[in-house]
């Protein structure tokens, strides 16, 4: 879903930050990032792969053991949750589970709506210091924390997977790590698992295609040590934690 409420400097989907159409040039081809798609067209596309999703029973499925399904990502997919409502309903009618990858920096009404429609939330925890969050990614931490609290305390328990992008110079400072650990501790009974995403440059070709300077990704060795430490600390909280292989 094109359009995001943040502008993280390490973003690997730069084409999805702006909600506007954007021209790109890649491998001699010129094209446009972004297109409008109607509910029916989107459903046709999604249902084509239905056979790969596996059967999903909202009543029976455990907290982690979901089969495949549809994941809305972006950008910030929850910005368009109202438009997605009929799509989500049809997917559920077809026993297909729905996940979103969200940073939760959206209007509180949208979170309410998302809780009604979505089965699995992949929630980013990025920078928790209010000033730094505002300055670096352009988000209001107060809004984020309220949304997170709403999600975590939603009456029908949701499957929440927390994702921590571990980005040198942005999210790896000890102050942020402590804040993140406090936050995880607060909701540990509600978190299914934590995934740490190490920095990577998979978005480089897209930056190049858009003619935007690619972010400088710092891969210094200490991050591996810190990631191990981080994983251990999260584990001590009693939360399953994994490092995503990129």
């Amino acid at each position: 879903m094109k359009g995001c409420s943040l502008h993280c400097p390490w973003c690997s989907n730069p084409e999805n930050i702006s909600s506007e159409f954007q021209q790109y040039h890649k491998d001699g081809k010129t094209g446009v990032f972004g297109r409008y798609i109607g509910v029916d067209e989107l459903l046709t596309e999604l249902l084509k792969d239905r056979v790969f999703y596996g059967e999903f029973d909202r009543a029976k499925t455990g907290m982690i053991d979901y089969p495949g399904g549809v994941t809305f990502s972006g950008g910030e997919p929850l910005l368009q949750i109202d438009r997605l409502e009929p799509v989500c309903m049809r997917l559920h009618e077809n026993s297909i589970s729905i996940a979103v990858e969200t940073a939760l920096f959206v209007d509180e009404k949208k979170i309410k709506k998302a809780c009604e429609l979505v089965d699995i939330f992949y929630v980013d925890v990025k920078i928790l210091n209010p000033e730094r969050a505002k300055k670096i990614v352009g988000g209001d931490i107060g809004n984020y924390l309220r949304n997170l609290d709403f999600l975590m305390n939603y009456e029908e328990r949701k499957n929440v997977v927390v994702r921590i992008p571990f980005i040198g110079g942005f999210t790896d400072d000890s102050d942020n790590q402590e804040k993140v650990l406090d936050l995880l501790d607060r909701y540990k009974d509600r978190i299914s698992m934590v995934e740490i995403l190490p920095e990577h440059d998979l978005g480089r070709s897209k930056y190049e295609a858009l003619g935007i300077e690619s972010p400088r990704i710092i891969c210094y060795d200490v991050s591996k040590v810190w990631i191990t430490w981080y994983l251990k600390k999260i584990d001590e909280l009693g939360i399953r934690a994994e490092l995503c292989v990129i």
Partner: protein
Amino acid sequence: MGIKLWIKNNLRCSYIIPLTTKYKTEGTVCFVRKALSIAMSTKVIKSSAKKRNVADDTLQLMKLVDVCYDPALTFYYHIDEKKTIAVRGNILSNFPLDYRKIIDGSFREIACLAVSAGGKYGSNARKIREAVYILHSRIVELLKKGHHTSVLRYFEDILDRKAEHFAEGLQRILFFNQIMWQTRHRLNGIGRIDRILGDLYLKDIEDGYLTKEEAYDLICDFIKCLHQNYEFKSAALMGDIGQIIILGGIGDDGNYFSNELTELFLRAHKELAYPDPKIMLRVSEKMPKSLIKKATDCLLARTGSPIFSNDDIIIKKMKEFGYAESDAYDYCVSACWEPFVSGKSLDQNNILSFNLAKVLFDHLERANLKQISSFKELIRGYDRTLFKELKAFVKRLDDYVWAEDPLVSIFTDSCTIKGKDISRGGADYNNFGFTTVGMGAVCDSLLNIRELCFRKKEYSLSALETKRKENFENDRECYDKLKALPGRFGHDEKDSIMLVNHIIHVCNMTLSEYRNRMGGKIKFGLSSPDYILSGKKETADIAGRKNGMPYSTHISADDAGYTELIGFASDISYGGCNINGNVADFFVQPNIISDNREKFEMFIEGAIKRGFYQLQMNIMDSATLIDAKKHPEKHEDLIVRVWGFSAYFNELPEDYKDQLILRALNSEKSVA
């Protein structure tokens, strides 16, 4: 008739052709040198009969071939590469012998029946029976002399009674496989070995005669034997050997068949990691998930095996084509993927290759392009040319003269009943098959013409055709525009699927009435060994392929996602005459599978349900291939899937290496 076919039909010296084809890619000088060396070192054995035939020569050959036992092996297996027979006509090849007949029964039984048919057929069968017995007794004598008692135990009685033990069953298959190679048959498949030997294995296990691990060791030794004579056995390229082992499969009771042997063969293949013998796993929605897991383990050994063949689609289509229900359920394949009913067929499934893209450019060459004013009209013209060229193409198949084959006739049900050699139509099924290339190129070319000439009207058809003929050398901008258009073939979208199915429909209409001289029908498929060789001969197309570049490999699109390609492959109209192997083919980086094992297995399960016909994969990353090209010495054991076989990467011609590297790079881009 081409000169090569004339030689094969009429000259006994044509035996040299299959032995030397693989060296063609090494350049003319090297090819001639190797061909001469093989001709000089290979002795043609002739019988003293005045009007000698293949049975006379085979009898003489079996008296003279070297017999030699390697004590390092559990089984006897030896091919004398330096002696052969020379007969006129094309030797039937590219299938598995029906080994069930010498496991559940005996060679003596089937040979005596054939002899009793009388006439020329019976007389030839008698000579073949004598030939097999002579070779057998010479081997027994050698084994006795060398006191090789353990192998003698498997070997001594193999001709006169049905098999009693698993090891003995394996030895019988090896013995007749060796005779097939020795008598100039090529691409000799192994067949449904878990089914053929399942009962013997179970009985040995139940009687305490054998443990599972001992059986595993025997299977490894069996595979090692078949892996011998690698260069001699290779046909068009090194590794193109065709010793395909078929595992699993739906039975006519509707249940999926697999047993411990299915798993043991997958395990042995994984551990030994040889390119050949290779494995095909017959798959179905009804198969156990645990077998998909075992198949994934095997895939991760990176030998290109197993290839998956989807029973839920294929069996139904074989029945519709005309195979009896029980035969369709029992299908094997020819050397690569073409369904074949063992013990009942002459079916020569891979005689020639037809280029569907060339038809389009032949049409554009002849048509008055200014008069083609719409896409529909262009399609109608293509259809007419396709009809004409395909008719002429299949007529050429009638020019083939098949050499008499009394040995294979003995193993083929109806031949003995009819007293008719398999080469003269003695079998139940006498079909021909061919493969096609260029479906991707014609599909994308037509859709690109529609876009640029009829929708956007940026070029007239004649202008675009002129640029194509010039290989786009004088108009880079036009070529860039073509490249900028999205690839359509292999992508799960309506237009390309409709177009592909339309072309298949025209082929079916053209071919449905065809009958060869033996009353057999014709089959085709969308997978061909010829995607590089055909591409080399042809000029550019309008899909972004320049002069001489390869066509896409089977049903593939390296810029498509995996589920997208499977969706496309599953929506193709199979059936009618289009049953001759249709393989979806893609690259997967090894870590994608190892990091997502469960998801990958779910994907395979979903893909079977979605309805692909057949599926093969190269589990490989571009970095390894690039490094192997630069530093072959570091990657001596690196195996890749080529068309329907696997080969050592280092032994492939450079253009095959480059094509594999390019495909790996493209597929990695699409995944990223």
